[in-house]
């Protein structure tokens, strides 16, 4: 392929060094956390989840005040009323306004879910962190114990504990519920944290940092913690719906929160009686709420996981 233009001899002089740039970098480098956030934003499903969570959280406190009824107000003249202009979600068998009760229940479900996840997190991080940092011997003993604890069927234990500490016919206290739920579920978090700590203990970061003079403390802060934060965040986010599910199941078999307090699961259980007599709304509405809350946390957790996965970088 011969060029058709005229070439001046001058062009054949040596090019100056400054004109060439052997190390030219064309794209801006990307920082870690802002990039994670950017990728999360691109995930529409996860964003929907986030918005739902924010909405539900706000409404959990605001929603009970909106239409003026109290969650425990009973009105025997207005039992089992289908949703209408006054009682937007209808009333239950004791005449209580379901709209208010549902938001009240959301408050408790969210609280239990988040509390359980938080406690799992704290115990898990503590236990796992210690196991990771300590000697091999202590570590393997700790892991053995954790294994046995974890292999005990979770929900069975929860049910048993609830059974023991409550009176028949009533529900469990909040404290008992949360205690029962976190008894065995902290183990995956502990294993995760321990794995990360071990990995980073030996890894290049520590080595490299120490070689340029970083102290162990600084290494912990600047390297180990940011790298562990990601998977931990995913785990915590995903353990919330697990806890909410557990609580809902418990309520459904009568071990949930004490009346007149309520959670979404308890409301669903109450509403079950309405099913055969044509009051399906009594169970369907809390059921939808539970599903939405769990859905929201699940997609958000998924979103975090995808956003943090380096292989999915676009």
């Amino acid at each position: 392929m011969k060029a058709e233009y005229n070439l001046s001899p001058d062009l054949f002089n040596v090019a100056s060094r400054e004109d060439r740039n052997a190390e030219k970098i064309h794209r801006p480098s990307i920082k870690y956390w802002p990039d994670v956030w950017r990728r999360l934003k691109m995930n529409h499903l996860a964003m929907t989840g986030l918005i739902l969570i924010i909405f539900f959280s706000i409404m959990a406190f605001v929603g009970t005040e909106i239409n003026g009824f109290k969650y425990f107000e009973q009105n025997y003249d207005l039992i089992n009323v289908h949703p209408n202009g006054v009682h937007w979600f209808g009333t239950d068998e004791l005449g209580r306004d379901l709209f208010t009760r549902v938001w009240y229940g959301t408050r408790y479900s969210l609280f239990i879910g988040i509390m359980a996840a938080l406690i799992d997190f704290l115990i898990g991080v503590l236990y796992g962190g210690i196991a990771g940092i300590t000697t091999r011997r202590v570590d393997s003993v700790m892991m053995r114990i954790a294994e046995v604890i974890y292999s005990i069927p979770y929900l069975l234990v929860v049910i048993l504990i609830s059974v023991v500490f409550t009176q028949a016919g009533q529900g469990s206290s909040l404290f008992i519920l949360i205690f029962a739920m976190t008894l065995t579920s902290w183990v995956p978090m502990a294993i995760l944290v321990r794995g990360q700590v071990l990995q980073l203990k030996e890894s290049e970061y520590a080595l490299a940092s120490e070689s340029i003079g970083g102290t162990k403390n600084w290494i912990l802060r600047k390297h180990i913690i940011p790298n562990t934060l990601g998977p931990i965040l995913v785990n915590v986010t995903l353990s919330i719906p697990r806890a909410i599910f557990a609580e809902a199941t418990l309520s459904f078999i009568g071990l949930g929160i004490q009346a007149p307090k309520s959670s979404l699961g308890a409301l669903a259980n109450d509403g079950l009686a309405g099913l055969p007599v044509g009051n399906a709304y009594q169970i369907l509405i809390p059921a939808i709420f539970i599903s939405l809350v769990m859905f929201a946390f699940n997609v958000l957790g998924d979103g975090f996981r995808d956003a943090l996965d380096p292989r999915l970088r676009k």
Partner: protein
Amino acid sequence: MKKYLLKRILMAVVTIWAVITITFILMHSVPGNPFRTESKMPKVVYENLQKKYGLDKPLSEQYFIYLGKIVRGDFGDSMKSRVETVNQMITRGFPVSGVIGIEALLIALCFGPALGAVAALNQNRWPDYLSMIIAILGISVPSFIMGTVFIQFLARNIGWLPIGGWGEFRHSVLPSFALAFLPMAQIARLMRSSMLEVLNQDYIKTAKSKGITKATVVLKHAVRNAILPVVSILGTVASNLLVGSFVIEKIFGIPGLGMFFIMSIGNRDYPLIMGTTIFYAIILVSLLLMVDIAYMLIDPRIKLVKEGR
């Protein structure tokens, strides 16, 4: 490998023992006495009952007696039922639960991997989105809600599907499907991510370079490898099925073990609670062990018995 197997069996036994012990401790730490909750009864009757259930002996002795009984397969007498022993109730209820459990498992194993594979093969196109939405719903909507929805919208409108009860095959259809949703969803999601990873592997490229059809590549090379992680979560799946069954049985009014369990909780019938709990634990632990063994058998990279070279 044999060493690993022995270790697993040992762990299983230890776990069951732990459950028995914990159950025992819990049941006997209930504040007050099980009989006190009943209406006042004559002292003589009370003492007789104490004797009958061995509650007058020291706690540690009761423990070993109980342990002994369990090992022999005797779960004792129910406190509330005058006619049946715990063993009889378990024998009555378990087959029913078993049928639903197996049906649900089959549904999950048929549709789960298929859904996941379809999603992976059509990544980011509509079959993927659809499958994954179904899967997310499956893990977000608790089974009792699924059951309720089925009853409300399907059973009421389709004559052949009953709202509840037990007796014929059609009684098991809705409950199994409601129960199967969660495991199916979990399997589908895992299958999808597993397939995606496998499809990026070098050996898939090798397979394609041989000029075999896409279907063969997918089935013989991709799926075969992608299904391995799915086998390993079957343990969790089994566990979920078990727990989900109580709730489903309650909604559909099915006389299975779950129903007895819930009933016993409501009645505070302690021997029954203990018996069913321990029974469940044994089933679960055995299933987990079987899944482990199955995995070892399926993956050619792990061999149970070392072959000579």
